[in-house]
């Protein structure tokens, strides 16, 4: 579903990804773990098309399409979702307005009709409820005044509303207390665990993987995949640290 082949990328002229190769088939959840500075967030941004994160070599195909040739909003319309490590505040725009415009923009790109105001609010309310988020929160400006945990929960509500084919979740578990972690984990399973979908979970720690069991675990270091394994690899990393495990 997502095929990354020998990907090289630079940020501000500095090489961060150095020949990363990774394949996530439909129906699978893969975890990417690795030490700070390994290039985990860069991978997320390159996949989503952030300006300034430049792919200098290699290829990425998503459902057979050349992902790197697409604009960020075209990637979203194609079914790619990036869960942000640090969700961004947009003052003056309510979550409801933001998500409705975004979703309808995606739908128009795909030749689907707009959701009406009523249909959208129903969808948004149900997704918020499933994530244990009060629907009133969605009337507030995007992420403004939200706690770290609330922002991450809101990212998952967004994912539920967008219902993407593939999600890249960048440290969605950081800053979450245990209840929020459980809710977020359940959300990922509910929304994304499906034969036609895929997930790339970027994380530092094993703890999210207690709730979302990965099919594969990869260790990212120095801009490439250093090691891959089954779920047991995450436990090994947790026990022994990245340096030991890599050796």
């Amino acid at each position, binding site marked *: 579903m997502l095929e990354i082949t020998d990907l090289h990328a630079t940020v501000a002229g500095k090489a961060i990804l150095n020949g990363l190769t990774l394949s996530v088939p439909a129906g699978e959840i893969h975890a990417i773990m690795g030490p700070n500075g390994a290039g985990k967030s860069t991978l997320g941004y390159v996949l*989503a*098309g*952030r*300006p*300034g994160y430049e792919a200098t070599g290699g290829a990425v195909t998503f459902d057979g399409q050349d992902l790197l040739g697409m*604009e*960020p*909003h075209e*990637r*979203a*319309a194609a079914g790619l979702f*990036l869960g*942000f490590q640090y*969700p*961004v*505040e*947009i*003052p*003056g*725009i309510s979550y409801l*307005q*933001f*998500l409705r*415009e*975004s*979703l309808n*923009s*995606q739908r128009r*790109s795909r030749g689907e009709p707009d959701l009406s105001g009523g249909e959208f609010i129903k969808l948004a309310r149900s997704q918020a409820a499933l994530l244990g988020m009060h629907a009133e929160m969605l009337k507030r*400006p995007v992420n403004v005044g939200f706690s770290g945990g609330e922002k991450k929960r809101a990212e998952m509500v*967004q994912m539920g509303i*967008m219902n993407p084919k593939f999600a890249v979740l960048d440290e969605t578990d950081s800053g979450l207390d245990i209840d929020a972690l459980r809710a977020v984990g359940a959300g990922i399973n509910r929304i994304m665990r499906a034969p036609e979908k895929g997930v790339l979970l970027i994380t530092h720690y094993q703890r999210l993987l207690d709730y979302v069991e990965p099919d594969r675990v990869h260790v990212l270091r120095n801009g490439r995949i250093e090691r891959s394994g089954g779920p047991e690899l995450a436990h090994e990393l947790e026990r022994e640290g990245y340096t030991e495990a890599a050796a």
Partner: protein
Amino acid sequence: MTDRATDTVRNREAHEAAEKLADYEWGFVSNVEQEFAPKGLSEDTVRFISAKKNEPEWMLDWRLKAYRAWLEMDEVSWAKLDIPPIDYQDAYYYAAPKQKPKLGSLDEVDPEILRVYEKLGIPIEEQKVLAGVEGARKVAVDAVFDSVSVATTFREELKKAGVIFLSISEAIREYPELVQKYLGSVVPQRDNYFACLNSAVFSDGTFVYVPEGVRCPMELSTYFRINAENTGQFERTLIVADKDSYVSYLEGCTAPMRDENQLHAAVVEIFAHEDAEVKYSTVQNWYPGDAEGKGGIFNFVTKRALCSGDRSKVSWTQVETGSAITWKYPSCILKGDGSVGEFYSVALTNNRQQADTGTKMIHIGANTRSTIVSKGISAGRSNNTYRGLVRVLPRAENVRNFTQCDSLLLGSDCGAHTVPYIEVKNPTAQIEHEATTSKISEDQLFYAMSRGLDQEAAVALIVNGFAREVLKQLPMEFAVEAQKLLGISLEGSVG
């Protein structure tokens, strides 16, 4: 207009016409015959205008006095604007649709004119009103087509409430004592060069009088529009709110595409008595000129309110996206004790546009309060200046002012400037001033785009969020229009 099929056809034709114009969506010229005043400006021009309007002697004298004063005055030079020389002899000062019988309602208006409104995207609510839909929200439209009011709706209902809502020409004939009492009482003839010019040659405009204790039963709305080539537009608006009355007035403008620069010098005067409240909202979208700055309207406007009575309140809200040059400072003279002045502004400039706009809050009475919220958005190679004065006079005890000026920059070739003047002569005053300048955030843009919005939609969204505090002050139908306008005005400005 009551025939739905006709409506649909009209809408389609209007849309097709609008689509033909790629750069300026609302740039079109309609084919209503004009009757021009001779080109140029002289005492004869002033007499021609006054005679055309069947004005009484005192009005002609008032105009001539202004004209003679104007000859002695100089153009303003202190604004941060690059104003090309204006040849006042190379313009027409009067153009009106050919005389037609007086109409009972807008239904009888020339379909050509209605088509123009259609193209302007008059809000649905008003279209319903125009179409006579039962239960439609009431908005009275005094249609200023070019220089003469063509028809006025809801006059009867307003009359029942005692509200006078007329073109100023009609008011001069029908309520001469009221007009004579208040005209020039807030903006004196010699106030400034452009106000003085307006006093001499004003073509038409609106007069509103709300009697004591009356809450105006509907929002009053006027559409201004420059329609004749080379026609200066000199609107004159006078709003008088008597004791304990309330009125909300909406003004929206857009102008057709034009190659030469056009001068627009309007004057708006608001007189608020004891406990009266006036809300004045503007969406201004005069033709801004092309991407190179060619053409476009010069908008030199004098808007001022006198909060004469105790506890009176005047609130200005403006969304300014148009004009090549904007020079405009809606102000409040807070004379009555406990009176309140508010100014909420969004000024957006793109390409080569220049705007120097802001407000003046003059605190004369005790316990007077003012609030200023200004949001400047600059894109392209434009220049956007907030210029504001807060003055507290020696006898004004316990004055409070809060000012917030935020500037948002799109790109690196535009300019944002904030020029606050604060003059406090009474130590009990509490004055707060906050100002920020920021560039549109790449984090926000990418976040919005990663959710599916293209770049233009993402920019429009972020800019609307930036302007929200001001937009929410607008009546609903105007707010929707203003939001769209911000997006349209920024198209192609990032990338």
